[in-house]
């Protein structure tokens, strides 16, 4: 069997904690013994509340935080403990969609410059022969910023939140990754544009077999788009499985609680869930 696209094995992440009263070094464990696999074209959600370790795990995939133990492989090759240069080359195939499209785009650059930057970083295409421009226009059209000529010279402040997030996604897709890690990709956006962004990710997965790992605290959205759901609490995975199983027959008490308190839109009798 070929290696999965992304494999996280027994990952542990610790942050140093400094206490003024103590000279001893202490650590806070943010992720504890987490294992997770992702195949090509899969759409998987990691759900959990703030502090559950889901963002730490996403950051570890990109080497933004070191692993205290365990390993992370991309296409069968270890990417933790690599030199920055080798890791960057390997990670070209994995890109990250950020949460806040109001904060993550450089306000001094145009849309075309933002989307072309990864091409320059990875040395794709060459300057002056128009190949980068063509790639940028193509990807802008594919994320729905069409016609590209209307958008390429604009600055982020001239775009709506949804359009900005499309620019962020375009900057990921331009290097044709096979893994997208999206950390709360729609939580800053109005509900009216969320489905459009998620449909865009979903289409990318269907058409190009791009695997998507979405980090979110929004259970209904995760359940609507993903194949599999991974529930994290206090740094550990408490349950994972196909969406229908986790939503309809949760086994872990925390997952049960999470499903119970999620507000339902179409439940017959209104009322507030009683806490034990």
């Amino acid at each position, binding site marked *: 069997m070929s290696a999965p696209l992304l494999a996280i094995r027994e990952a542990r992440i610790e942050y140093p904690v400094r206490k003024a009263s103590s000279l001893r070094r202490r650590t806070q464990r943010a992720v504890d013994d987490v294992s997770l696999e992702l195949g090509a074209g899969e759409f998987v959600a990691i759900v959990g*509340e*703030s502090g559950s370790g889901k963002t730490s795990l996403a950051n570890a995939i990109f080497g933004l935080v070191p692993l205290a133990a365990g390993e992370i492989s991309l296409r069968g090759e270890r990417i933790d403990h690599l030199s920055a240069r080798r890791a960057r080359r390997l990670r070209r195939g994995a890109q990250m969609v950020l949460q806040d499209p109001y904060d993550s785009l450089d306000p001094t650059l145009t849309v075309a410059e933002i989307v072309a930057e990864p091409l320059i970083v990875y040395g794709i295409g060459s300057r002056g022969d128009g190949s980068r421009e063509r790639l940028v226009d193509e990807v802008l059209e594919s994320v729905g910023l069409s016609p590209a000529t209307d958008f390429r010279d604009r600055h982020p402040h001239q775009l*709506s939140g*949804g359009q900005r997030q499309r620019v962020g996604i375009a900057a990921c897709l331009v290097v044709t990754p096979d893994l997208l890690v999206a950390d709360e990709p729609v939580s800053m956006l*109005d*509900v*009216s*544009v*969320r*489905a*459009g962004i*998620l*449909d865009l990710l*979903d289409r990318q997965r269907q058409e190009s077999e791009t695997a998507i790992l979405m980090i979110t*605290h929004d*259970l*209904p*959205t995760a*359940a*609507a*788009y993903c194949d599999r759901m991974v529930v994290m609490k206090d740094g550990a995975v408490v349950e994972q499985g196909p969406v229908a199983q986790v*939503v*309809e027959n949760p086994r872990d008490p925390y997952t049960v*609680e*999470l*499903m119970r*308190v*999620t*507000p*339902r*839109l*179409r439940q017959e009798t*209104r*009322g*507030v*869930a*009683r*806490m034990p």
Partner: protein
Amino acid sequence: MNPPLLEVAGLDVFYAPLDEEPRRHIVRDVSFSVSTGQRLGLVGESGAGKSTTLYALLGLLPGNAEISGRIAFEGVDVLAAGHSGLVALRGHGIALVTQSAMNALNPVHRIGRQLREAMPSGGRGRAARRARVDELLDRVGLPPSVARRYPHELSGGMRQRVAIAIALASEPKLLLADEATTALDTVVQARVVELLHELCTELDLAIVFASHHLALVAQLCDTLATMYAGRIVELGPTEQIRDEPQHPYTRLLFEATPDLGERKEHLRSIPGAPPPLSDVLPGCSFEPRCPRAVEGCRVRNPAVEPASHGGEVACLRPERVEAHG
């Protein structure tokens, strides 16, 4: 019959231009009323005017805001007395809970002191005020020891409970909540919503709950108002609006919101974006995005009319019930 607790009629809020910007019309001819114990939810996209409407009720808008219309609290027109009338309502009858409890609390004072400061002045001795602190904390489900804590020592959910306790300290009859649970995790959010529900029932407290979280609003509130581009375009009983929305915008908002267990095929985004609030459109402001729009929608701004669900709707071509089969 008693007048409603709060009556808002023809409320308009303009922002006077600061630079070369055009004058903006943020809240447009908004009318609604809230009675004792009622829970009204305000929903809509960012920029719809939800927060501005709430802040206008307390005179908390910036200096370049121009407010007109009628705001009557317990039958008394408070706007007639100008800005000072609105200010007098703060801490006497109406209280506000905002999104970020961390910003609402003073980081250098203990919780107990912040609660005592929010109590009405006079009439209580020192011991009685301290007892009242314990009572307020208990009311929001916190132990008395929290009074000695500083805000940074508390979790997000506890801070939001403290913010609610501070709001309750002035013994209000109406609570305004502006995205009061948005920053909280699902489980904590559910507990805070449960607390608000309990307070409304047990203290006969009325609440106006503004949030973009439709499912949460539908769960807490008995009445729902949809705002679009500064107007209330639909208002009525929550269940009836959810089951038979009359305004196309309300229907689309419900269709854009996933319910747990619903797959993506059932979800739709709403194309386009709300109009800039500096624009004066002759017709309906939702017309450019509306799937039901006809020629007349572009030239005539629909008036608010009674709707079949017992509430009201502002639409020339409201959704028909038979469309559901």
